């Protein structure tokens, strides 16, 4: 059975709120300087005294955001999550409200930003909060995913 890797956040209790992960994603994946245009974003959960939460893509399969996308800019990724084809995006913004965990950020032009499970943020976390986790890809899901993506 094939496997894929997805970004998970198993040790968020260790988070110190440095934002190194989201800044790395914005910098390396999206080529921007920003807190927002990142696939993982850190928020304080009711003030700094209660610690931090991450807002990453949970790698849904099927992904509601991909189902909501009318142009194929978001398509189902094997193992969960989405493949993003920016050129196909018409900035309708339908993907963001479809996400159950608010993991998609829409910028001022309604361009969506979501985790693509590349793992580039992981080494920047000083406390090892994040990891790339292997998940099995069901053959049927694999076939279905290919159809959605085509």
């Amino acid at each position, binding site marked *: 059975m094939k496997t894929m890797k997805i970004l998970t956040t198993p040790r968020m209790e260790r988070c*110190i709120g*440095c934002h*190194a992960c989201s800044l790395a994603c914005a910098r390396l994946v999206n*080529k921007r*300087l920003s807190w927002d245009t990142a696939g993982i974003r850190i928020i304080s959960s009711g003030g700094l*005294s209660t610690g931090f939460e991450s807002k990453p893509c949970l790698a849904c399969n099927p992904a509601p955001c991909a189902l909501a996308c009318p142009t194929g800019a978001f398509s189902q990724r094997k193992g969960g999550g989405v493949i993003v084809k920016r050129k196909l995006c018409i900035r309708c913004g339908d993907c963001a409200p479809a996400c159950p965990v608010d993991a998609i950020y829409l910028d*001022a032009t309604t361009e969506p930003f979501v985790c693509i499970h590349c793992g580039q943020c992981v080494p920047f976390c000083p406390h090892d909060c994040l990891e790339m986790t292997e998940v099995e890809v069901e053959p049927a899901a694999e076939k279905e995913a290919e159809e959605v993506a085509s």
Partner: protein
Amino acid sequence: MIRDHFRILTVDLATGKGRIVTIDGRDTEAGGSGLAALLFNKYGHADKPWDDPEQPLIFTVGPLTGYFPLMSKTVCGFKSPYHDQYGESHAGGRSALSLRFADLDGLVVTGKAERLSCLSIGSRHLELMDVHYMRGIDLQRSGKMLRKMIGGAGHRSIFRIGPAGENLSAYACITVDTYRHFGRLGGGAVMGSKNLKAIAIQGDGVFDLPEGKEYAELFEEVHKQLTTTDMMDKYHNLGTPVNVAVLNGIKALPIKNLQQTTDPNITGITGETFADDTLLRNTACAGCPVGCIHIGFVREKFMEPNHYLYRQVSYDHEPIFATGSMLGVTNAFSVLSIIDMVEKMGLDVMSAGVALAWATEALDKGIISKKETLVPLKFDDAEGYKEAMQHLGLGSNDFYRLLAQGTMKAAEQYGGEDFACVLGQEMGGYATGEVFFTSQALGFRHSHLDTGGYSFDQKHEEKNVEEAVKFLVDDEQGRVFLTSMVACLFARAVYNDELLADCLNSLGYTTLADNMDQVAQHIQKLRWRLRLATGFDPAAVKIPKRFTEITTWKGTIDKKYLNNLIKEYAKRILELGKEEKKEETKKAKKKANKGK
């Protein structure tokens, strides 16, 4: 974002309107400390008092803010209520990145709001909100209210003041994101005088990065140095409280209003004890993977039989010295409970602790009575100090109102100037000797961080006035460039000149990178000119007798050496602050602009 000029938002609180202003000077004033001085020259009034509504409250970041790790500090410039002269205070939290992502190099707040207000800004909004109902509300409660009112949790910074700021205490702080502070010189009172309870900055902008791999590769290299080497161990391990035991061991810890410099009971408040018994977790400023902020807790039984509440309190060396050793309190949880009260009131913890240490000795000596102190202040009586901190923040009577204007001001009226531990402002937590005392008494911010004077004392046995003063001048110059970038000074060992130049070059600030020494010298002089123009007379600085009565690992304080250091450093400051001839200024600017 990466631009050869400064983009400044000015806000007039009287009208609630703002204006974006473009100002030249990136290659000469750089940002941070340099930019704050430049903006005070433009918007400030040397001849008007600190609380004149026209005086600006300035917040600035630098060319490297947000682009590199630990470039995470904001400089606050203002005419200080403490001495009615220009001053600076620095803070981290999310302040710097919020300003950067709000697309601002600086924020200048002028005017006075009609009612107590909160200024809310972002890259695409500006609003002055009426929060008159927050008057008198402590910092913890107002924080909860503000967080609900303003969106964007995690990507915003909230600056706020407590009762001390509203009551115009000369050492009221501006608290940033609960655990950080523009602590010193009374920025909180400047906000109070403007009827400004809070400033919320939403970091909601998005910016392009330099093309090519150079920048991303350099970022990774710096990040690795900071996280995989032992260079920052001190800060994320025990944190600055590691100093408590070290200083106590070398007889250099101020204890009981500096009556002592060492005490075996200090084991109860060392960094090791705090970590073992009270540390809940670490947290970080945004953009810093080090995580030096240590959070402990206080637990209070508020009702029998078993009803408790708890609060989280950040600690560092300075608050531990000021509310612990200086007050003779040697229990870590007691120290945290005093800091907790200081936080609620919105006082600068160092000034507040040192002020109560003086009051304790003054009471003991019969200079003042319980009529003034309201509480029978006694070293090691934490409950009494908690109550007294509240009186200090609220200004409960004439005595506390005067003490909240500065320890020396109270001593001038009541007596006891000899044992007022004031070096420009209430002392920092180092009794290392002559060079540190000179450094803080005359330093630009009267901060223990103006120079590494405490370190010089520890590394040098010889008493060479010329060498020591050269160190103070050169070290200030190096630090002022860092605080113009704006780096956290904890990163000073990492960001050497070569790395700073690489960072600036990677972002396209090539002229700045080529002229770092000249720019640092220029900013140093610019700040001193401003300080002197607003009334500072370094030749008039006097060190209270108590500082000459102590014994450190080196023995007794050498008064002659101390006096010579003060005399020589004052002379150098006057030279640094001398008005440059216009022609020289033009030449310096032309040189810096060459190749732009």
